[in-house]
């Protein structure tokens, strides 16, 4: 009997949390700000034919390498590609819409003390092989932020 009660309570909690999660994602008026978890912007670019807008974030080491062009171990690059949307309140402007994909590149030192990169796609789908994507992502130069 006690087991039944515990099971029923567990079901209730799971159903409740699922319901809450759905409430949040279905809230039509909610506005989502992408959480970069403390990473800073390296650059931004867009593709009007593909209708995407991207923000490249990085940790301090990645930001430094995007200024100097010299890589080090411990760099973290996160390329977030959004769908491009019309800016509802200004004809003449596009704005980032829903997240289309997230790509993550991290650098590490090999046994021979060379710098190598790991590549992951935590969200969405991306065309192009990993080596080409790594080269593209790590070769962006940093914007000037006065």
């Amino acid at each position, binding site marked *: 009997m006690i087991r039944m009660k515990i099971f029923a309570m567990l079901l209730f909690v799971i159903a409740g949390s699922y319901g809450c999660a759905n409430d949040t*994602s*279905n*809230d*039509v*008026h*909610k*506005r*989502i*700000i*992408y*959480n*970069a978890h403390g990473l*800073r*912007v390296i*650059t*931004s*670019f*867009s*593709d*009007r*034919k*593909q209708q995407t*807008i991207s*923000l490249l974030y990085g940790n301090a080491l990645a930001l430094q390498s995007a*200024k100097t062009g010299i890589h080090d171990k411990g760099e973290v690059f996160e390329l977030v590609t*959004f*769908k*491009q*949307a019309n*800016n*509802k*309140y*200004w*004809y*003449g*402007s*596009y*704005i*980032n*819409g*829903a997240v289309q994909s997230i790509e993550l590149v991290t650098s590490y030192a090999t046994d021979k003390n060379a710098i190598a990169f790991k590549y992951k796609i935590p969200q969405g789908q991306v065309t192009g092989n990993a080596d080409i994507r790594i080269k593209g992502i790590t070769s962006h*130069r*940093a*914007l*000037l*932020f*006065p």
Partner: protein
Amino acid sequence: MLGYSLVKKLRSMVSSKKLRLWPIAGILLVGIISIQFIQVPVQNDKVTHPINASEEVAKIFRKACYDCHSNESKFNWYDKVAPVSWLVNHDVKVARSRFNFSTFDTLSATDQQVRLWEMVNMVLAGKMPLNSYTILHPEAKLTPHDVEVLKNYVVSISPTRYHDSSQIKSAEEEQKVLVDKSTASKNIPVAPNGVRFIPDYKNWEVISTTSRFDNHTMRVIYGNKVTVNAIRSGRIKPFPDGAAIVKVVYNIIEEKNGEVYPGAFNNIQIMIKDEKRFPESKGWGFGRFNGKGLKPYSETAAFNTTCYNCHKIADETGYVFSIPLENKDLK
């Protein structure tokens, strides 16, 4: 008998009320006649530098805008009777101070572009022509075809220069000297309205990024904690005091294949929310700092009104244009 006495009583009441109303009506009449002499009628000055646009476009401006935004205002008889004339005078004066189609060509090409895009966006937002005007002048209403003509017109005056070598060169020069020059230890630039540059914006969250085909720039837009919390919790009408937004603006390099890259840094624009300091602009104080030297824009605080006038278009989002879209608008 009873009916007769009632009618008699009513008649005497009306006639005594009439007697009492006459002096009031007389005073009102004298008053209305008197106020006709204390108005200064709007003058139509000469048309010196009219807007240079195609006949199709000019025709739309003439029917929807010219009565207020030109020196060719046409008034009906009731527009000339005070107190209506006072309202008309006020509206026309304000409208001409924003832009005047009869002197429009005295503005620089860039200023003309800025104002024309603003006009189109005012129309798209349903703010112009004013409803109070179109009620009495229904012929001034714009048709969907008119709006399309205006949209195409502003795009045509802001052509894209693909692979612009001057933009590429200035971006390359900027990259050569790229150093994270923090202004924290230097003098902080201050706009004429008192809005200070905020070097710490780099540690804030990015709320959005935009790519613009009106003025060929892009922006990375940051919000402080107050702003971010307000957006996430939907408390943006109004934004709370203490909200701050920083827009970092870059020129862009556009390629024929659709790729758009940032060029050189252009300016930084700031919005801070302080109801007490900026009561006339719904609490928003604006600042703009140009070039790598972050030179404050404008020499007087009057620019704050210009910024606010344009931001009125975005009253649905607390006067901020570039906040993330609502979930329902994400595709």
